[in-house]
């Protein structure tokens, strides 16, 4: 029941938040810019600010703050739905939280959202103090549970999208498994530009992602002017270790696998197999798709450690170049 879940959320938020958290006393208190959008029948912007300020013990909202939070209440077919989204100083989305659809009492929903928002502001303030070398506030010490993320049973997604890696308040250290598939165009790995398909899976946490994958190329053909030639296909396993910042990742990439070659148009065709070993770098940019999905354009540059040479009639007809590349796009889901 949405109402029961909301009540649970409110309870957990109240437990998590300090009963009367004090405003940070050192230096400047943590502030955030608020953008509030709601139907006219809902509580006003001021009501929301009031809920948060009462919970925190100080007014955290300032228009010139570097951090922004968007609080949105929208009507749905079954009632109303709430959501807020954190935006970093560069404007990129760094975390969001949804509140279940189906509610009809907007006042209750806004109150719940206000309490949850107070918790997150408090956590951010604590994090900021810690990173600045300031001791935690009394509220933090008294309430260790405040360091935990808000309950997830309200479709919480306070952790930044896994692709972003950059932790907002919350579960930045949480392991987030993901799987996906992709297509790419490979250059320098075959006699022609060759389509590649791949599947992959891995885990992401904080600013690091580890990924294992497998990829397969279509058969590419090289031909001599007499019609003799060969077909080549690649089957590779890949491993990537990535550092992430916001939605972008830079990865060290290794691929190992088989090169399958078969002669064509010659009197005695042969089908030898070889080994491909490639090392390189990959850049990708993950764009969230809904709550769980993502799409990620990517580009890789790879060095061929073992440049294989294909021969016909004992004469070289093609040699893998020292450097190859691929450009493509992945899609996947993150299990949160």
């Amino acid at each position, binding site marked *: 029941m949405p109402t029961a879940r909301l009540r649970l959320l409110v309870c957990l938020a109240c437990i998590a938040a300090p009963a009367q958290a004090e405003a940070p006393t050192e230096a400047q208190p943590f502030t955030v810019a608020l953008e509030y959008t709601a139907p006219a029948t809902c509580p006003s912007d001021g009501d929301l600010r009031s809920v948060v300020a009462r919970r925190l013990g100080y007014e955290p909202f300032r228009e010139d703050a570097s951090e922004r939070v968007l609080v949105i209440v929208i009507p749905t077919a079954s009632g109303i739905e709430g959501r807020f989204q954190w935006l970093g100083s560069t404007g990129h989305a760094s975390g969001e939280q949804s509140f279940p659809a189906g509610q009809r009492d907007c006042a209750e929903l806004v109150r719940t959202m206000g309490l949850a928002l107070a918790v997150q502001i408090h956590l951010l303030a604590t994090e900021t103090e810690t990173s600045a070398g300031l001791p935690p506030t009394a509220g933090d010490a008294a309430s260790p549970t405040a360091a935990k993320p808000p309950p997830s049973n309200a479709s919480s997604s306070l952790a930044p999208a896994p692709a972003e890696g950059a932790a907002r308040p919350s579960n930045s250290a949480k392991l987030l498994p993901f799987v996906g598939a992709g297509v790419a165009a490979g250059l320098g790995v075959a006699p022609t530009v060759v389509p590649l398909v791949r599947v992959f899976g891995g885990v992401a946490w904080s600013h690091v992602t580890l990924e294992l994958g497998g990829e397969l190329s279509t058969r590419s053909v090289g031909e001599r002017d007499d019609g003799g030639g060969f077909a080549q296909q690649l089957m590779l396993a890949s491993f990537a270790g990535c550092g992430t910042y916001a939605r972008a990742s830079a990865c060290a990439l290794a691929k190992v696998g088989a090169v399958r070659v078969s002669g*064509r148009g010659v009197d*005695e065709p042969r089908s*030898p197999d070889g*080994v491909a070993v490639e090392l390189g770098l990959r850049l990708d940019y993950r764009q969230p798709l809904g709550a769980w999905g993502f799409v990620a354009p990517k580009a890789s540059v790879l060095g061929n450690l*073992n*440049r294989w040479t294909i*021969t*016909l009639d004992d004469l070289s007809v093609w040699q893998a170049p020292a450097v190859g590349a691929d450009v493509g796009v992945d899609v996947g889901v993150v299990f949160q």
Partner: protein
Amino acid sequence: MTPRPFRTVLTASACFCAVACGQTLDAGATRPHGLLPVDERNPVVLMNDGWSDNWAGEYAVLLANGGGPKLAGIVVNAAGTWSDLDENVTGWRALVAAARESGLSGIPDPIASISDKLVRPASGVIEDTLPNRSEGALFILRVSSELSRPYRPLVVATGGRLTDVADAYLIEPALAERIVVVSSLGELSQSGAAMGVPNGEMDPWADAIVSARLRYVQVNAYYDQLTEVPASRLGELPSNALGAFIAAKQPQVYDLDVAADQVAVLAAGFPAFVTAVTRVSGDGSVSPGATEGPELTASREGPAWLVTEGASALAVGHFWELLLDRRTYAR
């Protein structure tokens, strides 16, 4: 200090490289379709003198339009009985015109090549020979550069003296990697074959150069070439310009087996024709004033090939098949 994971990756990569770097993947090879090192896939330059004593030209243009080798050139020279170069070239042009008018494609204009026979130097060393730099020699050099591949060299199918081929070698010795000479020349002997009559007697020093320096196939599978177009079959000839040309030429074809220069074209472009081959080697020398080229001696490891038998009936059957097949004229 290098981070441990990075060192591990480097070590693993080095291990892979140690076993796999520079690997060669052999996708296969071509093999000749018959007993000789060339077949119908090798481009051919036809080299001859007279146009009317045999059917070499007719086979060349028909095979070029019927699954045989591409005809890359026709080089016409003059020697012996066929010493009038103008007359020779005129006859070959008539064949080319008839073939084209009938619908055959890929038939090149003949090239006239003026050259005297090569002179053996006093040193007896092949490379000391003065080249003629004839038109035919220069043409062979150019076409072989364009068309020859290591796996598919250019064939020079000769039905006359070997002067222009030897001349081309003297100009550019690297030619040896680009061509195979297939010649209707000489006759079988007790020990192998002689590079004498027919055609070998006209330039013995050129014979010595070709047999010593180039990949050489001597075709001595002569046959009665009057069986090709007997008078009784003139009525079967196609009613086109080529059929008319053949009908007009038929009475002039020599009733002499060794005049059947088409055996060189058949050996190169119709592998089924060649039924027996012996490897031979020549000593590469002829004495001053010699009247024929070196003797080719049967040798298991010999560098040259000697075609001793041919399936003439099969060749004649194929000749008529191509001649009467409408598809021959529609390519």
